[in-house]
């Protein structure tokens, strides 16, 4: 049913992603689908890397660990954004298109009043891409 799964990851909160990561792995193994882990970074130095190159290396390392753990091949895609606090959804939507993914599996929070002002990334992604989106509550 699915051939390419995209898994957006926030490396700063990798500890909160385990359910989504496991769900993505289950889908991948069940449908024998390829998995791409995608992360969004700024050009400026940050806690996850002092430049996009370092960030991409960290993301690749993270993905390799996932691949080894679940036993499948992985790809990564580090998207560079001028303003990731705001452009995250757009960057992810672009990554879905460029990767040709037909399923997105991602973690999302329990909605609260803040979602009226800033809707969840998963929700926005579902309304801005053709791919199926599977949201996993932490």
């Amino acid at each position: 049913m699915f051939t390419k799964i995209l898994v957006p990851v926030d490396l700063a909160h990798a500890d909160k992603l385990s359910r989504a990561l496991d769900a993505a792995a289950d889908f991948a193994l069940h449908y024998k689908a390829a998995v791409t882990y995608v992360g969004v970074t700024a050009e400026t130095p940050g806690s996850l890397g002092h430049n996009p190159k370092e960030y991409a290396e960290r993301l690749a390392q993270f993905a390799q660990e996932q691949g080894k753990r679940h036993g499948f091949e992985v790809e990564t895609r580090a998207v560079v954004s001028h303003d990731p606090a705001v452009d995250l959804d757009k960057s992810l939507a672009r990554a879905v298109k460029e990767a040709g993914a037909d399923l997105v599996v991602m973690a999302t929070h329990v909605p609260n009043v803040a979602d009226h002002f800033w809707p969840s990334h998963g929700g926005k992604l579902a309304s801005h891409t053709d791919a199926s989106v599977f949201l996993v509550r932490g």
Partner: protein
Amino acid sequence: MSDDGIPAPEGDAALIETDYEIGQDNITTTVGPFGLDVHNPVFLISGLSIVVFVLLTLALQEQAGAIFTQLRDWLTSTFDWFFLLAGNIFVLFCLFLIVSPYGKVRIGGMEATPDYSYRGWFAMLFAAGMGIGLMFYGVSEPISHYSSSFADTAGTPESWAPLAGAPGDAEAARRLGMAATIFHWALHPWAIYAVVALSLALFSFNKGLPLTVRSVFYPIFGERIWGWPGHIIDILAVFATLFGLATSLGFGAEQANAGLNHLFGIPVNDVSKVILIGIITCFALLSVVAGLDAGVKRLSEINMGLAALLLLFVIIVGPTMAILTGFFANLKAYVVDLPALSNPFGRSDDNFRQGWTAFYWAWWISWSPFVGMFIARVSRGRTVREFLIAVLIVPMLVSVLWMTAFGGTAISQIVNDGYTAVTEAALELKLFAMLEALPLKEITSFIAIILVIVFFVTSSDSGSLVIDTITAGGKVDAPVPQRVFWASFEGLVAIALLLGGGLGALQAMAVSTGFPFTIVLLLACYATWRGLRSEPR
């Protein structure tokens, strides 16, 4: 290198090895449903001390006004030579870097590519840097210098004329007036911005340090920069930025209100001004929430488009040939008078040197952390030479053209047509008085008032982004509600000062921060030179 160290940016670059991890001092929490990721203690101390300063100024208005105004006047009159000398050093430093081999160093590593096209980049540089000033001073300053130079008193100690003035000689007074105005808006202010921007960009994109003002001082303070010396530098930068923006917003609302009254008869009162601040703040909020690309950049481009339209209109319907030939004549006058105007010693034009030049330099310097940091953020991928030419030379040429078109047209209205409305109008209305003597005055005046408001929005949104980044310890991906907080806070401070009084007092204080920052900037030149020396080129 280990995971904790700093690996290379794109391509070769000389790196600073530090164990400090960006965001390690940050507090990450939630306030109600909203996330928060702020630097401890920069965010809290900046926010609280701004509230305390505003309350104290409101409570002790007269005393605060007197103290800060005296402080500013004392600094600009006692240390005028220091401001002028420092300004010259900044210009020479930048010109030296343009022609030196260090010009080949690329911001972000040797293989980095520019993030923005020239159009978007210039638009953002200009809109953040000085747009609003050009609207208000483009007409009034050339007239002021022309009038004081032409007056019989020019050259006396009471005169405000630049250098010795040109009593009774209209042509020489016009030339000097334009040269003196351009002097305040061309190389020197942009060299100030360029020094801050280049140093921040270099230490962030090439050396891997966080994008905050403290990073520039790593070569001087070393690891201590992550402690209190760094906290104080960042807090000062937040202070100067917020008060600079809030007081300008307050005054801007007064000026925009006067313009709207002049055009549409909208009453000049507190309600109108508060509504204006509210509108500007709302647009700034929408812009920062939309982000750097969809908000700030797009608005800056619209802003530049409108400004170019107005400029083109004045050139076409104004004295076209006079403006076009005046451009080269004024550029020449500026170059010829530059050594005399920038000379810090042995001059007798105290009022001009202290009241205009030193004040301007302090003003530009107090704005430099904000403008410099914003320019730094959008300049990755440019070489040092390309960066400095773009930040120094292009704005200089635009400023000369703008001043020639607006100021030159106004002076020509006075000298050639005997049109005195421009001289008689209040400062904030001089632009409109000039436009009234040209065709289609309703349309151009309306565009001008829109431009005034949009220029405030573009300063306000980029300022809020900068304050948010500094108070988040250099993180640019902190939760969006923080930007909303700073943009709203700036509007509220402006309203409090407008209603309670104290706009002048706190603007004087903001300008006074120009003095310590001048020292900071001189150190930044040294740090940048050291930083560039170790870069591959």
